């Protein structure tokens, strides 16, 4: 019966999810990677990953199938909201449930609380007020492939990020329902992913008091008006607006409240920057002893279109478009250049979807002479912070938080 029910479910979910969703039984969806369609950094011999469609996903750049590491093509950032089926996928460990049964799934809240909770998804939705907000989720290693010298870690281009409308309940309301004790200092959170071998540190994250008391940290059950894709953490994902994605625990299973600090590998050893204001060291230097956790996003913009190496005819109109974001102060201006940074002008900003959202921008121009044209984008926020030019980009040994002004080259005939 279990088998039958599963099969029936899969069929009906195919119908209800609509024809756009591809459930590939195997690698029949393989599309050969087109060399040159991913931006080429300095590493010209870089491996071109295949593009693959996973369940509920369009074909994405597959850096790994297990754990799945799927990168969004940069063209998707021509819009301020990243569709669920193009949203990047990144897990740390390979044991990921293929089935979430809501009859048995529970989110537990325990530790330094008076009333431990075991919440079903239905209870979570009915007991707490729902909130919605747009927020950018960006992997700490996004754009790592731009660092020189190279830093180890997944060599993402710009596609380990996305912006969605998240709907869920406030973390602090859930903690209040558990009667969190006033002396609580940290939360330890983990999801359902597990390492293959027991000796590998599990993926857990810690949030401190200021963070878990924020009113905009939410436990989300919806993304862009739909249930989360399983690969993005169905049924629940933590949303920490303005923070890098390592804090956004997927398939959230357990919230453990601590009254004092306790070391957790993926907060205290991994995802760290040098402890100075820039979070940097001289290029090539090792990680210093003093480090700090990677937390707030830094100001960034990415050019989505035209496509890298696109061929355009002189006199044709070109729409340059992309997104910009920061840690929540708000984007004030996006400067663009079509002469590799010699001169700059302001792009048009689309409507503001909120402080933590992508701000779409665009600029239309008509190239007048033929040759290679390098366009650039550079965002400024309301604090006056501006993206560094690539030559001035600080370097850190783990290759986190790349945020230099973006550039993209096209051919004008």
């Amino acid at each position, binding site marked *: *019966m279990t088998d039958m*029910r*599963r099969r*029936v*479910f*899969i069929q009906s*979910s195919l119908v209800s999810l609509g024809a756009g969703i591809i*459930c*590939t*039984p*195997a*690698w029949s969806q393989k599309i050969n990677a087109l060399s040159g369609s991913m931006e080429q950094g300095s*590493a010209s*011999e*870089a*491996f071109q*990953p*295949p593009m*693959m469609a*996973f*369940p*509920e996903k369009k074909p994405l750049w*597959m*850096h*790994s*199938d*297990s*754990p799945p*590491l799927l990168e969004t093509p940069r063209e998707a950032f021509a819009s301020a909201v990243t569709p669920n089926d193009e949203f990047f996928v990144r897990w740390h*460990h*390979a044991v*990921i449930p*293929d*089935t*979430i*049964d*809501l*009859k048995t*799934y529970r989110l537990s809240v325990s530790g330094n609380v008076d009333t431990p909770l075991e919440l079903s998804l239905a209870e979570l939705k009915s007991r707490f007020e729902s909130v919605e907000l747009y927020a950018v989720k960006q992997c700490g290693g996004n754009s790592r492939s731009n660092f020189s010298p*190279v830093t*180890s870690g*997944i*060599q993402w281009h710009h596609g380990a990020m996305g912006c969605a409308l998240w709907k869920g309940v406030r973390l602090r309301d859930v903690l209040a329902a558990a009667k969190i004790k006033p002396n609580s200092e940290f939360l330890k959170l983990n999801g359902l992913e597990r*390492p*293959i*071998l027991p*000796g*590998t*540190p599990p993926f857990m994250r810690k949030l401190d008091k200021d963070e878990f008391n924020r009113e905009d940290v939410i436990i989300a059950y919806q993304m862009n008006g739909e*249930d989360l894709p*399983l*690969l993005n953490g*169905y*049924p629940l994902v933590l949303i920490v607006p303005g923070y890098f994605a390592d804090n956004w625990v997927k398939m959230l299973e357990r919230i453990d409240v601590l009254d004092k600090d306790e070391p957790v*590998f993926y907060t205290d*050893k*991994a995802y760290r920057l040098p402890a100075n204001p820039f979070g940097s060291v001289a290029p090539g230097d090792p990680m210093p002893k003093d480090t700090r956790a990677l937390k707030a996003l830094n100001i960034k913009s990415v050019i989505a279109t035209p496509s890298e190496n696109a061929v355009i005819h002189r006199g044709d109109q070109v729409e340059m478009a992309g997104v910009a974001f920061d840690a929540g102060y708000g984007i004030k201006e996006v400067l663009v250049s079509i002469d590799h940074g010699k001169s700059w002008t302001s792009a048009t900003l689309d409507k503001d979807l909120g402080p933590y959202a992508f701000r779409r921008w665009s600029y239309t121009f008509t190239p007048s002479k033929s040759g290679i044209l390098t366009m650039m984008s550079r965002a400024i926020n309301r604090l006056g912070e501006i993206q560094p030019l690539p030559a001035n980009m600080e370097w850190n040994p783990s290759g986190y938080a790349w945020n230099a002004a973006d550039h993209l080259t096209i051919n004008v005939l």
Partner: protein
Amino acid sequence: MKIIGITQSLAILFLLASLSVNAEDAATPPFAGKTIDFPKAYVYQMQKGEGYETIQKCSICHSFGYILNQGKQNRSFWEHETHKMIEAYNAPISPEEEKVIVSYLVKFYGNDKK
């Protein structure tokens, strides 16, 4: 008669079977949640040569995609990376195997940079 008898008993069996299906469906609510079929393993083809057997250990916890994705890198990069797998993640790799793996990576995925 015999044939009819078989047909009849088959029919009865079928009926019973469908009744039991209905009874069970009524008792247990339909599946609520989500299930996906993970695609079957993709082959990130590694260069064949000395050390190829040993580096199979590098795909216990993750695909070879992780290695290919790094691009061609120098010896100190691969030494550091291999050692990190053992130290930080508890990869079951002996010191002898570690040497074989580093030589393999340097030979097939190395560069001349210092």
